[in-house]
């Protein structure tokens, strides 16, 4: 069964200029996303993990052109997203939506839940008046809220409920792709499962694709079909989720997996404790970005950036010494 590609990202780059000096010239760049490529199939969930500041949100936002990419190509159903003008981009947003991490900050506090969820229907002239009200009511029910909740304001809801409001808004236009940027990170453990299950149910019902961004590997592994691991603006490994867990290739993935706290005191793991901190994306290390913390580092790693290569069965890795000879 050949899967159909929905989204294709090729060599995406986003450099944020750093301004300084009297005339506020550009004195450097934050290499937030530096040559990232991946695809998302129809109905698939691709997980994107990595440490704070490695460029996950920037990648997600660039795809929707909420920020303009510096370079690279993004194809959505074969259409070049980077070439679209404002109007064409706006209509494409019906197909691509985003859910943000912070359920508190991402909803307008002065709007009722009804107008928040109904707004996209109006903007895209899909439904108005009583028809809109009906659509909103059914959307709210779909995400486990009540139709009466339409008249309430965001502050009257708990964190998990607010995240549901954000999800209802995101699915209002029947999108094909939703970028989920840390959708459960701010939620209590007992509420996280509710939201994860909801996302899975909606995917099944509507054949949605997700780009699921999170730093919690337990969560990403659970929801994803494939997982991409980012480090300092680059994808260092990409593989089907069980392969990534059972046979991690990149030394960074290995360390990351060994560090995940497992909620079971009888599981004793051999932890790989990485030395030092993540370097700054303003001045990333030469060669392989990971070499400053890598336990297997050799001379070539400081000098040459490793190629991101396919090592079989959809498993990709960027390391000079992997797969092991």
């Amino acid at each position, binding site marked *: 069964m050949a899967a159909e590609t929905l989204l294709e990202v090729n060599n995406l780059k986003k450099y944020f200029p750093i301004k300084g000096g009297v005339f506020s010239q550009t004195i450097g760049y934050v290499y937030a996303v530096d040559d990232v490529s991946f695809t998302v199939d129809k109905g698939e969930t691709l997980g994107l993990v990595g440490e704070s500041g490695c460029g996950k949100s920037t990648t997600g936002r660039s795809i929707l052109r909420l920020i303009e990419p510096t370079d690279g190509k993004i194809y959505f159903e074969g259409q070049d997203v980077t070439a679209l003008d404002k109007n064409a981009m706006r209509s494409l947003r019906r197909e691509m939506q985003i859910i943000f991490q912070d359920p508190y900050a991402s909803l307008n506090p002065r709007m009722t839940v009804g107008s928040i969820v109904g707004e996209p229907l109006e903007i895209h002239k899909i439904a108005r008046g009583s028809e809109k009200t009906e659509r909103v009511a059914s959307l709210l029910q779909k995400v486990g809220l009540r139709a009466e909740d339409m008249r309430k304001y965001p502050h009257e809801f708990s964190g998990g409920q607010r995240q549901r409001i954000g999800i209802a808004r995101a699915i209002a236009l029947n999108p094909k792709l939703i970028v989920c940027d840390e959708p459960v990170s701010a939620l209590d453990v007992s509420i996280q499962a509710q939201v994860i299950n909801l996302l*899975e149910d909606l995917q099944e019902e509507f054949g949605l694709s997700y780009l699921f961004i999170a730093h919690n590997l337990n969560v990403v592994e659970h929801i994803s079909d494939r997982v991409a691991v980012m480090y300092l603006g680059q994808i260092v490994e990409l593989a089907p989720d069980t392969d990534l867990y*059972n046979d991690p290739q990149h030394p960074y993935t290995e360390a990351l997996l060994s560090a995940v706290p497992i909620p079971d005191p009888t599981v004793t793991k051999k932890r790989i404790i*990485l030395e030092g901190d993540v370097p700054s994306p303003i001045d990333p290390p030469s060669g392989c970005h990971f070499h400053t913390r890598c336990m297997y580092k050799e001379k070539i790693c400081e000098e040459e950036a490793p190629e991101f290569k396919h090592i079989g069965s959809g498993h990709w890795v960027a390391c000079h010494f992997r797969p092991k000879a």
Partner: protein
Amino acid sequence: MQELLLDIRGLRTQFFTDDGLARAVDGVSYSLEKGETVGVVGESGCGKSVTALSILRLIPDPPGKIVDGEIIFEGTDLLHLSSADMRRIRGNDISMIFQEPMTSLNPVFTIGNQITEAVRLHQGLNKRDALAKAVEALKLVGIPVPERRVHEYPHQLSGGMRQRAMIAMALSCNPKVLIADEPTTALDVTIEAQILDLMRTLQDELGTAIIMITHDLGVIADIARKVVVMYAGKVVEQAPVEQIFGSPNHPYTQGLLQSLPRVDKDASGAKQRLQEIPGIVPSLLNLPAGCKFASRCPSVMPQCHEQEPPLEPVAPNHYSACWLNH
């Protein structure tokens, strides 16, 4: 028999707010033995931090007040100490790593200033010895080039290093009790692993007893010997770590453990749908009668809505507050 170091008995801390009375901590008891690590878990707002701040008597008054209970530290009730005596205990015998490092590190003083102030106050060291002590403390927590870092300001350090500096400050007076309130929540997993490793080593070397507050059951499984599970201002279950994870008694603890995705399990077989705990935590301002978990409990009985279940032994060293055990 281990030596009892800190014993919290029937603690009640309340906030008198415009919206009404919040019973943030409502009859909490747990204890800490010498050199032991106790893990405290529970939903956001269930009273974990307020309990910790009550131990150090750092509850802002108004609007807060400790209205009942005892906090016995080495035989003395801290709630009866004078402010001056309490100041001597704080940072010296009992110290705390706060939930937000930036709020507890003063941005206008160097890391060195902040550590030396504590050691000079508590240990009466002169300036030079205090500085040497600060450098030593930074070295102990694995900060590279401590001689230089000691003169830097908090904003010059990365998140992980700031957290280490906080630990260094908290440990600089060799406290008997270290209260760590979500010390790794804001950190990345690889940095979290470093900090947990560090805390374990320091505990082995210095024999510090630790109260570890976190919402991450993975961290608890990793570091705690005893676990206290809180829900809506109460302790609902308490047991040695193996029993909490191996044979949890309270339906909330059971639900919590079942709702967790686990990378090790998911990867080894067919993925299962997560078990969810339905509903949300009741508001502290408007708590229901009876068991606070009743509205979300899969095994709820009529009695649960009427009477609050007491925390009672269900096995040796294992306590739970649930009517199902009757």
